[in-house]
């Protein structure tokens, strides 16, 4: 892992207008750097501001204050549409366009970028291979796929235009445990193989611990803690400790319940 930060949040704040005069502070003065090649997980409950923080990076949401840079450029100086085309985005449960074939969904960003048709087609084949879906899926419509297959297409769509950065919004939340596990491992392998920089949000601390290099813990719009799993375990913050307690206890109980005999 090199030390060059690819995404930098500096004193970033976002306030949403609530009902009437009410103001909801979604993100409160967050500073955060994501290094090139890093896999960062942002963990928090609902309303913690984690989704807002993610979307500020590709300007799906505009920051009110502070400064965000992507690959060294201030995002405010970039055309948001062009910015989004160079950052991959994996949505919750896929969000594939239901009227467009698998190939069309995967090739959507290259098409917007004006790639030639043959190049897009070749890239689609390459990606289907990469996310371990057969070429036979090319012309299927999303409703003909299983949930896991749909999210594989979602990942392929995010990678299509060869982005250096991928943002993931609870990508594995809606999948059954076996599918989820397979997909997580496959994605982590892709992340390493393609030297991606990934920011993933999740409410599942266990998932974050298993997948990410570093974990950012968000609570009530504030960044409570940031570090590797080992660093986090030393945190004296009560909320962080509570977040870690659950996977730890589960792991202990599972170990006790499922003893490995050591038999061959």
């Amino acid at each position: 892992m090199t030390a060059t930060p690819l995404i930098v949040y500096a004193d970033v704040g976002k306030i949403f207008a609530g009902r009437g005069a009410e103001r909801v502070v979604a993100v409160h003065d967050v500073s955060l750097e994501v290094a090139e090649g890093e896999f960062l997980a942002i963990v928090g409950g609902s309303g913690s501001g984690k989704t807002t923080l993610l979307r500020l990076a590709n300007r799906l949401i505009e920051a009110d204050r502070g400064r965000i840079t992507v690959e060294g450029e201030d995002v405010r100086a970039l055309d948001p549409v062009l910015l989004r085309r160079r950052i991959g985005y994996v949505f919750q449960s896929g969000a594939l366009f239901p009227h467009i074939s698998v190939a069309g969904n995967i090739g959507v960003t290259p098409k917007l970028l004006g790639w030639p048709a043959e190049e897009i087609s070749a890239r689609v084949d390459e990606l289907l291979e990469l996310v371990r879906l057969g070429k036979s899926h090319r012309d299927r419509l999303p409703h003909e796929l299983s949930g896991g297959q749909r999210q594989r297409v979602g990942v392929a769509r995010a990678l299509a235009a060869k982005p250096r950065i991928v943002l993931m919004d609870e990508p594995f939340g809606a999948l059954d445990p076996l599918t989820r596990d397979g997909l997580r491992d496959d994605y982590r392998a892709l992340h390493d193989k393609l030297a991606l920089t990934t920011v993933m949000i999740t409410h599942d601390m266990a998932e974050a611990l298993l997948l990410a290099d570093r974990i950012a813990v968000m609570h009530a719009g504030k960044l409570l803690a940031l570090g590797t799993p080992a660093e986090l375990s030393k945190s004296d913050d009560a909320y962080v400790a509570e977040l870690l307690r659950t996977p730890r206890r589960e792991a202990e109980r599972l170990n006790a319940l499922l003893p490995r005999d050591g038999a061959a």
Partner: protein
Amino acid sequence: MSLFSDARWGEALTHLNDYLGNHVRVSVTALALGLVISFPLAIAARNRPLFRNLLLTLASIVQTVPGLALLALFYPLLLALTSMTMAWFGFGFSAFGFLPAVLALALYSMLPVLRNTITGLNGVDPALLEAAQGVGMTPSQSLFTVELPLALPVIMAGIRTSAVWVIGTATLSTPIGQTSLGNYIFAGLQTQNWVFVLFGCLAAAVLALAVDQLLALIENGLRNRSRVRAALGALGIAALILATLVPTLARPPSSYIVGAKTFAEQYVLSALIAERLRAAGFSASSREGLGSSVIFDALAANDVDVYIDYSGTLWLNQFHRTDMLPREQLLDELKAILAKQNITLFGELGFENAYALVMPKQRADALGIHSIADLASHAGTMSIAGDYEFFSRPEWAALKGAYGLSFRTQRTMQPDFMYAAVASGEVDVIAGYTSDGLIAKYDLTVLDDPKHAIPPYDAIVLLAPKRAHDQALQAALKPLLGKVDISDMRAANLRASGNDAASSPDAVARWLWDRIEKH
């Protein structure tokens, strides 16, 4: 004769090409115009709640206006507009028939398209809108590649509703001069030709159903992403439009258009004129079921070449004159007024269709009543019936004033029932129409009007400005002038009110011409 072997089915069928073709033409144009207007409006309004509510409210208000009234309102509106463009830019357009029908129907078609387009677009899953934005689409790329395709099935459902409404409502465009399947219905209602009414309703229903089913096929294809079904539906629609339009377009336009108002006598007389023109070697077609003021304006604007009006109607209703002149003087004066609008009063047919006080002949003879003056002394013990408008018309006020009439009771009645009522003694006197065939049928007598309180209602032939010097036309119609006497017209009207094949306007017109030739 059974219902289905009735010869009038065959006669109805001969008009089908013309009526159906025109019906499809006006419906398709109106629908297309409605779509072209509603679509961008709906897209612009979908994210603006205030604009959206305003738009839907306006469209709903339009929808509450009865179709007939909406169509009728567009006629004077366009008439005013054309006189404005004429004054300002030196050109006008025809406010008659096609244009007002298309505009009114287009307006009528807008609500379902607007509502469904907005509902369809707003119903697209917000996660997909985010995804479209997230993969790098601009708002218009998102609209055209994601939102519209996903909303299309709902939009198509709106187009279907609108198509059925427009096809149904287009039958009401007959009175403003647009030929449609409504011609069957209006003609049938006026001449009690139930076969025509039924035929018109069936044809409109079949057309609406066919279009609805083809659009349903397209909708189904879009919903299930089946290109084959969508293409089949689109082909069907195209074939339907072509099949109904080609025969109408291939036919050379008629050289003469004969107008007719909305009652049986007018249908017979326009058939008579059209037949005379054809006998003279011209092509002629009838534009029937036109409203009284529509037909006069259409003639003045050269949209109709010739029609029969009544001197008293023009005097009172068109020119709002309240003074009463003797017959000849009134005709002369009318001729002069019409000439100012370049309309030719070509001549009188020879009979009057005026309001008149009518009572059974025997009773009148027994009481020694021959004129309205004789009636005055008996009126206090008698009852009188008239049609819906008679008692509020100037003729009634004039009659009361001139003869000091004061009846015991007065009732309003449906004209068809009035004659039977007076014949049976249910009422003593009725305000009937002098050329009505039922006067002879029930052996009634028309009381004289020695003080000329009721203006003359001579049937007169009016020619459009562009026909003022048309010698051939005038030569063809000359034999009719002064030749249609009141007893023949009554007999013709009585025939036309029958409910069999011999009562069609064309058949009665041929019978009437035979009578005229024998004189």
